[in-house]
C-alpha cells in the first residue's frame, strides 16, 4: 500500500516534469503577452516532429535530433511571433483566444497535410528500464526529471540576473511602465515567445521516446493539461508553475490509480476549480493580477 503510493508519486513527478517544462514557457508568454496561448501544445508537437524527421529521414542520433527539433520549432516560432503574437499585445482576451486557436489549427493541420494523420513511430532515445531505489523507470524518464530541474534553475537565474530576463520580468509586472522607461515591449514579447516555444519543443523531444507515438494532433492534449497548471501557478509566475505542475502530475497519478484512468484528464480542471474557489488568485499569488 505504502509502496504503491510512493511509486505513484514518483510516476506523478515524472509526468509533472514534462508538464512543467511546457507550462513554464506558456506562463512566461502569458506574463508578457497577456494572452492565453491555445497553440502552445503545437510547439511541443513540432519539436517532436522535427526530431522524428531527423531520425527517420537522415538517420541522425537522438541528441542531434533534440537540437534539430528545438531549433526547427524556434524558427517557426520566429515567424508566428512576428506575424501573430506581437500583434496581440494589448488586444482584448477574445482576440488572443481566436488568434492562437487559428495558429493551432494551421500548425497542426499543416503537419497532418505534409506527414499524414497516422501515428509515427519514434525510435530514438534511451528506453532501457533501470531500477532505482526499487522503482523501475526508463532511463529517459530520469533524463526528463534532470532536464526539468536544469530548466527551472536556469530560468530562475535568467530572470534574476540577465538583462533580457529582467526585462521580461519587468514587462510582466507592468507593461505601461516599461514602454515609458524605454523597454521595447514588442521585442521582449517576441523573445519570450521564442523561448517558450523552444521549451515546449524540448519537452516534446524528451518525452517522445517514452510516448513512442508522434502524430499531428498530439499538441492539443498538452495544451489542455498546461492551461490549468498556469492558472493554478499564478499566471506569469515561474516558481508557482513548477509547483503546480508537480501537484497536477501527482494528483493525476493518484487519481489514475485509485479512481480510474478515465477521470485523469478532468483532474487538471477539477483541481483548478477547487483551487480557485478557495483562492481566487491562484495558489502562489497574493492578489489577482489577471
Amino acid at each position, binding site marked *: 500500500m505504502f509502496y*504503491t503510493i510512493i*511509486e*505513484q508519486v514518483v*510516476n*506523478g513527478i*515524472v*509526468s509533472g516534469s514534462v508538464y512543467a517544462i511546457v507550462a513554464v514557457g506558456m506562463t512566461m508568454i502569458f506574463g508578457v503577452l497577456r494572452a492565453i496561448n491555445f497553440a502552445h501544445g503545437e510547439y511541443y508537437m513540432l519539436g517532436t516532429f522535427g526530431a522524428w524527421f531527423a531520425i527517420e529521414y537522415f538517420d541522425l542520433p537522438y541528441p542531434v535530433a533534440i537540437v534539430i527539433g528545438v531549433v526547427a520549432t524556434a524558427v517557426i516560432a520566429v515567424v508566428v511571433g512576428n506575424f501573430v503574437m506581437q500583434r496581440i499585445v494589448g488586444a482584448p482576451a477574445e482576440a488572443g483566444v481566436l488568434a492562437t486557436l487559428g495558429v493551432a489549427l494551421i500548425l497542426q493541420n499543416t503537419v*497532418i497535410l505534409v506527414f*499524414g*494523420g*497516422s*501515428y509515427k*513511430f519514434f525510435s530514438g532515445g534511451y*528506453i532501457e*528500464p533501470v531500477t532505482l531505489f526499487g522503482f*523501475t*523507470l*526508463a532511463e529517459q524518464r530520469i533524463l526528463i526529471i534532470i532536464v526539468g530541474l536544469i530548466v527551472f534553475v536556469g530560468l530562475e537565474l535568467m530572470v534574476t540576473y540577465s538583462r533580457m530576463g529582467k526585462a521580461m520580468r519587468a514587462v510582466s509586472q507592468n507593461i505601461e511602465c516599461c514602454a515609458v522607461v524605454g523597454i521595447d515591449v514588442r521585442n521582449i514579447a517576441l523573445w519570450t515567445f521564442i523561448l517558450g516555444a523552444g521549451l515546449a519543443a524540448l519537452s516534446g523531444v524528451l*518525452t517522445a521516446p*517514452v*510516448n*513512442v*507515438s508522434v*502524430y499531428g*494532433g*498530439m499538441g*492539443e*492534449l498538452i495544451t489542455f493539461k498546461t492551461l490549468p497548471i498556469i492558472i493554478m501557478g499564478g499566471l506569469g509566475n515561474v516558481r508557482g508553475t513548477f509547483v503546480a505542475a508537480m501537484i497536477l502530475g501527482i494528483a*493525476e*497519478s*493518484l487519481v*489514475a*490509480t485509485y479512481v*480510474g*484512468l*478515465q477521470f*485523469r*484528464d478532468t483532474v487538471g480542471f477539477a483541481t483548478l476549480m477547487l483551487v480557485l474557489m478557495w483562492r481566487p488568485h491562484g495558489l502562489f499569488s497574493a492578489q489577482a493580477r489577471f
Partner: protein
Amino acid sequence: MTIELSRRGFCIGTALIGLQTVSSSAFARSEDGTVKLGLVAPMSGPNARYGAFSLRGAQMAAKEINGAGGIGGRKINILAGDSQGTPVEGVSATRRLIDQDQVDFIIGDVSSSVTLAMQPVAEDAGVLLLNAASSNPKITYKAGVGGFKWTYRNYPTDENRALIVLQYAAEKKGFTKYAVLSVDSDYGRAAIEFTKKYLPRFKSQILTEDYYKEGEVDFRSVLSKIRDSGAQAIIMYGNADSTPIVGRQMMEVGIAGKIPLIGNAEFNTEKTIKAAPKALEGAIEAAAWLPAYESEKSKAFVDKFTAEYREAPNNHAYVHWETTHLLAKAIEQAQSIDRDKVRAALSKIHYASAVGEVTFDDHNQARLPMILLEIENGKPAIKGAYSAEIDYPK
C-alpha cells in the same frame, strides 16, 4: 388526430397560390447509367486517416468492378462525404449526398455515434445505408425488424467480439481474473459492457476497470495498479495507435510477458510488435480481418492495395472494399438499381467474402465470423474463425 407537416403537404398549399416548387426528390436518380454510391467517412479531423483508408478501399473496389464492365453495364461512381467523425457533420454529409448528389446508396460511417445519427436520415429518404465499420450493437438492434428498414451492417458487433474473446481466454487459457484498459469511446465502453454481460457464463471477474482517452501517453500509474491487482490478463479494446505506448510502458513497469493483452487494438501489426515485442507476446486478438489472414481473396486484396497505394491496407480499407463488392453483388442480383429491389436482394444474399460467407439476419446484421489470433514468437498465429449468434434484447 395526427397531422404530418410534410413537404408534400406544404407543396399542395403553395400550389394554391400559384407557386410551383420543384421537389428535388422528383428527379429520377442515376439517369446517366451509373450507380451513385455515397461514402460517408471522416476525411478530416482526428480520425481522418480512417476515412482515407475507407475511401481508398471503396475506390479500389469500384475500379475493379468498373474495369470488369460495371454492374450490368452500369459503372459505380463514388461520391465522398466528410463526417469529421462528429454526428452533426455526419448528418450534414449524408443529407448532402442524398439531396444534392442524388446518391442511390450510402456506405458509412466509421464511428458508431455518427452512424446512429445517419440512420434516421437515410430512413426518411428511403436510401439504403450500408454500414461497414461501426461496431455498436445498437445500430442493428434498431434495424430490420427493430425499426430502421434501410440500415444494413456488414461488420461484426462489439457484442460478438467481446463474447468470442472471453470464451477463448477462459476456455483455452483458463483465465478468470481480468483487468480492463480500454479506449474511452463508444467502442471501448460498449465492448466492456458486453464483456460484463458474459462474465458470469465463464465464472470470471473484472478486478480493475480503466478507460484511456484517445491520445493518452502515460499509462504507468494504471499499469502499476494492474500489476499489483493480481489480474491474469488485460482486456483491451482500443485504437491501434495507443498499443505501442502501452506495450512500452508494460515493459517499464515489469509486466510484459506476464500479463497478456486480450481484445482488439491491432496487436498483430508488425509495427506494434516491433515497438514492444516482449509485452505483446501471447496477446490474443479478435479481428474482423487482418492483413495476415490466410485466404486467397484476402491475400490478393492486400497485394493489390499495397501495389496501388504503396501502403499496407488496414481493417477499414478492407471492410469498405469488401462492402462495396457486397453491394455490387446485391445490385447485380436485383438486376436493377431500384432501391427496394436491392434491399430485398441484400436480405437474401449469400456472399462469399474473404473471411467466409456473409448473410444478413432479420435485424439486417451480417452474420460474420471473427478471426482469432495469438501472438507467438513475435508473429500473429491464427487460431481460427469464430462466429456467435446475437441475443437481441426483446
